[in-house]
């Protein structure tokens, strides 16, 4: 190993924290639905990086056995369980991303814009709800148009 394990751990954890914060920023601040979806992807990457880093073991090999195919000959291995977990998480992340993108495509088709405020205002006009209430719903971080519409209906 060229890099000290301590330094490596700090770098990996710092990277995970940065990815999580960047992803949350992307989900909270922008008003573009596409950016909100990309923020979710960054957040997932940060969590995955953290999980894989947590299974790291200094001076250990990848959990793949090579000839002569005995666990004793292989010496210490890094923890395989977080790697399998992250494999699951990545695949589920792809599913979530596909569903999110499909919804974004439909919103663009139906409203011609990806701006959450514009979509919420238009929805308020079409349902006859108070625009102020709907806009308040749209200010909820990452709120999808459906959620904003429901807020408008539930308001007294």
């Amino acid at each position, binding site marked *: 190993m060229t890099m000290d*394990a*301590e330094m*490596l*751990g*700090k770098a*990996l*954890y*710092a990277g*995970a*924290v940065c990815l*999580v*914060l960047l992803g*949350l*920023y992307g989900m*909270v*601040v922008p008003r573009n639905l596409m950016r909100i979806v990309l923020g979710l992807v960054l957040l997932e990457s940060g969590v995955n990086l953290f999980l894989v*880093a*947590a*299974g*790291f*073991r*200094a001076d250990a090999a*990848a*959990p*793949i*056995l*090579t*000839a002569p*195919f*005995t*666990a004793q000959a292989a010496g210490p*291995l*890094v*923890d*395989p*369980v*977080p*790697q*399998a977990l992250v*494999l*699951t998480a*990545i*695949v*589920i992340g*792809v*599913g*979530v991303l*596909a*569903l999110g*993108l*499909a*919804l974004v*495509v*439909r919103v*663009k*088709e139906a409203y*011609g814009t990806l701006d959450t405020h514009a979509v919420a205002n238009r929805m308020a006009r079409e349902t006859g709800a108070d625009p102020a209430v709907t806009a308040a719903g749209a*200010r909820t*971080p990452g709120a999808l148009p459906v959620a904003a519409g429901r807020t408008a209906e539930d308001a007294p």
Partner: protein
Amino acid sequence: MKGNARAFASALFLIGLGLMLVTLFEALPFGGAPMQVGQAIAGRALEDTGATNIVSAVLLAYRGLDTLGEVAILFVAATAAGLVLGGAGRAEAQGTPAGFILRAAAALLFPFLLVLGAYIVIHGHLTPGGGFQGGAILAAAFFVPLLAHPASPVNHGVATVVEAFAGAVFVVIGLAGLVGGGAFLVPLLGAGTPGDLFSAGSLPLLYLAIGLKVGSELAGLMARIAAAGDPARQGGKA
């Protein structure tokens, strides 16, 4: 004014969360072996399953039921995306054909991507890779030609049949484990010689089913999203 307040509150929240996470990670040991389960599995996975790729052993043997749930989640997400996008009943895509480089490269890449994807799926229990990774490459093999020729029609029927068949095979192998081994998804057929292509019992069969399922699902999903983003169709919709 309200936008400023919101940006300020968001920044405050992010800084606070960042400080909390950094404090937590400071206290976390790194490079040790925090979990005993992982070390125990690494020590005995070869005798239990015969798979030299221990991640595959965890995924298919120790956590096989979780993997079935994961495949089910992927299936539900793909179905929901297809439902949201309106499925195959809509008009055919009429995109402009891609440039020469992409068209030539797509024709050239197709067989290599197929072989690479099949190799990674079939050797999932021996080397890094497996059904999910190989399935993604198989999906790319079918999606790159679609990028090169956007006007070509997509046959969703074949993908749906392959996907349903592969999912059924996974469950049938699990039920065979219930009958033959006493528990759902128990590895059957013996561990075999470690390192051989035909070893690790029923794990390669499970990975083959996963590879076909993931490949057909991802290819169908990408084709649907690509067709839905077609500007000609958007004009017709609005």
